[in-house]
């Protein structure tokens, strides 16, 4: 009853092309944004902001980045964490070495550096497909981390490559409380998601999906494979780089190359798979799921072990976590390879008909 589209006609292609063509969706998004901008800062605890919402937004962004490359363009990448590292370290160096540079410019340049590294490792991708490409991205992952650790210039000569992000000032106003950091991250993430949605529904996005679905056919209808793939690598790495920047500057504060390990790349890949390949909403869902899962397990496993009178050690909990992760990946791939986003879509379809069964 609520979610009816009846009466909503589109009389121009422009309105048909809107991001949220259904009125209820538009209202819903405005409400969510209002809550995010106004209600949350007022009511959420510092812990919620620092440890849950900010990483949630940052990882949604990284997931979107990987989704561009793997989900839309079909190029499997296992190196997303390395691009996050490039973004973080590049932004740090710009802030450090250019006196008085506005931090937003440093952030942007950090993303650009990540994009350039992405292009460099994406260049071989025209001849290399599928798993081979995954190995190429592994090369990026290991090589980049090694460089950042060994060439001490990147970390201003600190031991083992640790860097501490500089404090941020917007027009003289310091950004150092959980609330201000949260709002900054929110603003950047929302902006980048809007841009991402634009890219994905344009000819660029369609070219990516064509290359993913059948690259021979894409070539035949005139889509330049190399250029399309490189743009995917560039934009994907830019987004991961931006996520890395925010990760360092607005979340952890202090990072080192080892913090951007292969494990993190896999985590982001799981977020893409579970959230939904080729979906914008899926990035949020996947990130939320993977971030909340360890917390949920940490809370419930001790309870279950007490109920069953089976003592569980800390390491067992982490092992169970691995098993649950693995089983969930397999489960999603079997049951709904298009992830939570598709489940959401199915739910919306049912909502359209509710309360009538058909």
């Amino acid at each position, binding site marked *: 009853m609520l979610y009816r589209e009846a009466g909503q006609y589109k009389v121009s292609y422009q309105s048909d*092309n809107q991001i949220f063509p259904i009125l209820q969706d538009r209202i819903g998004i405005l409400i969510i944004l209002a809550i995010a901008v106004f209600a949350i800062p007022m009511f959420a605890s510092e812990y919620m902001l620092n440890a849950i919402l900010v990483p949630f937004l940052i990882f949604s962004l990284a997931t979107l980045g990987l989704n561009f490359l793997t989900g839309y363009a079909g190029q499997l990448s296992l190196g997303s964490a390395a691009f996050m590292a490039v973004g973080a370290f590049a932004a740090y160096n710009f802030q450090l070495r250019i006196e008085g540079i506005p931090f937003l410019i440093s952030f942007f340049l950090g993303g650009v550096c990540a994009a350039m590294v992405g292009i460099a490792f994406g260049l071989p991708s025209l001849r290399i497909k599928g798993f081979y490409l995954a190995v190429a991205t592994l090369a990026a992952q290991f090589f980049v981390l090694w460089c950042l650790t060994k060439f001490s210039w990147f970390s201003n000569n600190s031991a083992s490559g640790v860097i501490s992000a500089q404090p941020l000032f917007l027009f003289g106003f310091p950004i150092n409380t959980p609330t201000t950091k949260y709002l900054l991250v929110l603003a950047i993430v929302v902006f980048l998601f809007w841009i991402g949605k*634009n890219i994905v529904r344009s000819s660029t996005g369609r070219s990516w999906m064509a290359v993913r679905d059948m690259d021979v*056919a894409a070539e035949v*209808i005139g889509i330049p494979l190399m250029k399309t793939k490189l743009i995917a690598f560039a934009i994907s790495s830019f987004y991961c780089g931006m996520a890395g920047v925010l990760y360092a500057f607005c979340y952890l504060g202090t990072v080192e190359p080892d913090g951007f390990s292969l494990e993190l790349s896999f985590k982001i890949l799981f977020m893409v798979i579970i959230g939904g390949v080729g979906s914008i909403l899926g990035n949020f869902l996947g990130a939320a799921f993977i971030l909340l899962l360890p917390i949920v397990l940490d809370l419930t496993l001790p309870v279950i072990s007490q109920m069953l009178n089976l003592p569980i050690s800390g390491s067992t909990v982490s092992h169970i976590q691995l098993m649950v992760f693995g089983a969930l990946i397999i489960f999603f791939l079997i049951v709904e390879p298009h992830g939570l986003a598709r489940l959401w879509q199915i739910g919306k379809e049912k909502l359209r008909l509710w309360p009538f069964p058909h």
Partner: protein
Amino acid sequence: MSEAKTVLRLENISLSFGGVKALTNISFDVKEHEIRSIIGPNGAGKSSMLNVINGVYHPQQGTIYFRDKVRQKMDPTQAARQGIARTFQNIALFKGMTVLDNIMTGRNTKMHSNFLMNALWWGPARNEEILNRRKVEEVIDFLEIQHIRKTPVGKLSYGLQKRVELARALAAEPSLLLLDEPMAGMNVEEKQDMCRFILEVNQQYGVTIVLIEHDMGVVMDISDRVVVLDYGKKIGDGLPADLMKNPDVISAYLGTNH
């Protein structure tokens, strides 16, 4: 009536894959605005022929003349930009996208916004999208597939998928259209519809068509001229009615000991 120009001329084309000779010394031409059919038993090399015209395969020997100019070795992307479009024997649609998006990809060679302009959904990008959407809707109207434009292609029946593939090829506004068994697997009604569309495309929009088809009735009805291939060699070339009386063609189809 003035002599129609030759759009495509193939001379002594030979193509092999390793030890397998797919095409041997094939020569024929295609005149502008005509419907040229390529027929022959299975494995005769018809699809390979189309792939050569399209730039997917590169013949080891022979020359291709496109609009009276020698055509250098080119890849399919360049062929597309020169106005050659095609459909495939086994449908090559993008299964992850809707019908509308699939057809829009056909407009790719006409769309020039780069990704930055797309990202900001800035004026020129938005206008270009709407302009091309309009063109695509014309094709959708023409092929009568309005009702399925938002359906993911994977969910459509085979016949409709073939029609969408034709739409995608037409959206590129080609001057030369290559159709690889566009009517395979269709029932009589669907075939009649497809014939109608092909004829309209040829007569109304003046598109030159090279067609691979097995249904002799269709070939007889709609082709202007026919090329017959067998075992990678050309065994007939001319008007449909004449070829039906050609003993080589008859034996190729009915089968004799080779």
